[in-house]
């Protein structure tokens, strides 16, 4: 049973890795399209020279660089993939195979991530070469914790976006809804500014939403600033369970609607 699972997982991931290697030029461009944090880094470093935010320019440099790196690992595009499959009729053959289509979508993301790693390593080398003052070492424990939390953040982000994608069973453009959630990620997750500079009241509210767990939280661990990450990691697990449950309910209802309307 386990052997079969791994064989399936390996076949799907390795073939998708081969596919993503075909698109390596595009992947570099996609990765570069996530450079916004580095633009914001410049802005915040300038603004923070007065020291009024309780953070030094180098702290902002490290923060936004970490946002960029973590963004590379948590980027998800399943909503566009699924929408295309529904609109162009590619979902039907997937439904006729004895495996949930989500496994294929996950395989695509993991395969792409492996291709992207080379680019990320190169980019890190260039960045630290140009700005050696920003080099930091989070320590093995923080690095290990960050890796776990980034994996959780990716799973959460994937489950959230895949649930939005499933709205595609009812409407042809689920990606329009995703654009709204993207706005939340921009302003509420810590992408546009560290949550540390937000007013205390707002910060407290934001931690009740899933957004900061996908950007701000992994970043602060990677920077070595989070002293006790496990309670928040447990909250992430709770959110993940919630989105998986919501996803499965939506999947079942959507499938019923899809098969009722003529697939």
């Amino acid at each position, binding site marked *: 049973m386990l052997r*079969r699972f791994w*064989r*399936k997982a*390996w*076949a*799907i991931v390795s*073939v998708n890795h*081969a*596919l993503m290697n*075909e*698109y390596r030029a595009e992947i570099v461009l996609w990765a570069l399209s996530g450079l916004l944090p580095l633009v914001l880094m410049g802005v915040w470093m300038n603004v923070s020279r007065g020291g009024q935010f309780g953070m030094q320019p180098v702290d902002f440099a490290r923060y936004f660089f970490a946002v960029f790196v973590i963004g590379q690992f948590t980027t998800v595009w399943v909503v566009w993939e699924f929408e295309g499959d529904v609109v162009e009729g*590619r979902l*039907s*053959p997937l*439904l*006729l*195979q*004895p*495996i949930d289509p989500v496994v294929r979508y996950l395989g695509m993301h993991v395969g792409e991530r492996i291709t992207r790693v080379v680019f990320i390593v190169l980019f890190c080398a260039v960045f630290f070469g140009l700005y050696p003052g920003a080099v930091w070492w989070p320590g093995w424990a923080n690095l290990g914790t960050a890796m776990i939390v980034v994996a959780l953040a990716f799973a959460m982000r994937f489950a959230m976006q895949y649930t939005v994608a499933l709205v595609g069973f009812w409407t042809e453009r689920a990606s329009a809804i995703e654009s709204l959630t993207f706005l939340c990620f921009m302003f509420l997750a810590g992408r546009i500014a560290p949550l540390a500079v937000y007013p205390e009241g707002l910060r407290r509210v934001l931690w009740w939403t899933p957004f900061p767990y996908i950007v701000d939280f992994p970043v602060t661990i990677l920077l070595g600033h989070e002293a006790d990450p496990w309670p928040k990691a447990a909250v992430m697990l709770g959110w993940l369970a919630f989105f998986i449950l919501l996803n499965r309910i939506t999947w079942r209802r959507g499938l*019923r609607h899809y*098969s*009722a*309307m*003529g*697939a």
Partner: protein
Amino acid sequence: MIAARDLAKSYRTAAKEPGFYGTLRHFFHRRYRSIDAVKGISFSIEPGEIVGFLGPNGAGKTTALKMLTGLIHPTAGSVQVAGHTPFSREHAFLRRITLVMGQKQQLIWDLPVLDSLRINAAVYDIEPAEAKNRVEELSRMLGLKEQLTQPVRKLSLGERMKAELMASLLHRPEVLFLDEPTLGLDVNAQAAVRKFLLEYNALYGATILLTSHYMADIVALCKRVMMIHEGRLIYDGSLDAVLERFAPYREVKLELKQEARAEDLRSFGEVESVDGREARLIVRRDDLTQTLERLLGTLEIVDLTVSDPPIERVIGKIFHDGASAVPKTELAATPT
């Protein structure tokens, strides 16, 4: 192997008028219309049978195939395929069937065919050694070899269809639903696909239900055909009997000693063409013997041939006339 009873499917679709006003109206006051795609069809197919599913565009063939594979829920009626209710989509059922619709379904466009086959082998839990054997067998049967290592996008239409068939049959399904498997292929590729399907059917005793607009596919593969028109099954029986039932006439080709005029031939039957000394007549089957006697007694004939009208023409006429092509008594008695 397949049993459908009173299978019906209706669905709602949005109706929108063209133009700006139509768009506004559609936005604020969306109107829907109900489409009865399949209207209570019943039939059964035995294991190992190859059955042609014929009908004009929009007749309900694809909707019926989708119900049989479990992609869509029937609005009414019941269906069993290989002992399973298709729309439950149990894995045990999905392992026993396949549906081929078009040529860009299973294969990964930018990778070699072998990569798609690798995923399918894993998905269907086929051991690597066994998968290798099956790929070799299918590639031999389909005449694909070096093409398997080429990206799918570089393959010709025919090669792609063959590769699609390979991907669909790697798990050796017992029931094959094929929707236009030779669409757009050249004559040689069509013949190769037909030969392969016959070989696969003989080798594994697979049950095949296929739709095709090419009568050559139907004639080569199917002893039995089902015809669907506007969602109703209007014929279910042998292909040979189609001519008996729907074409109660024969084509008589004449070569005369002297040139003839159409007016001279009208008393013998419907004059299809007159070209110098050659003429073609359509004669009712019941009157054939009597007409031939009259022809031979009246005209100086060099050569005379009697043949069935081409099957394409007969089927085309049935589709054109729809249910009215079938006598009401026969429609009621059609073995559904």
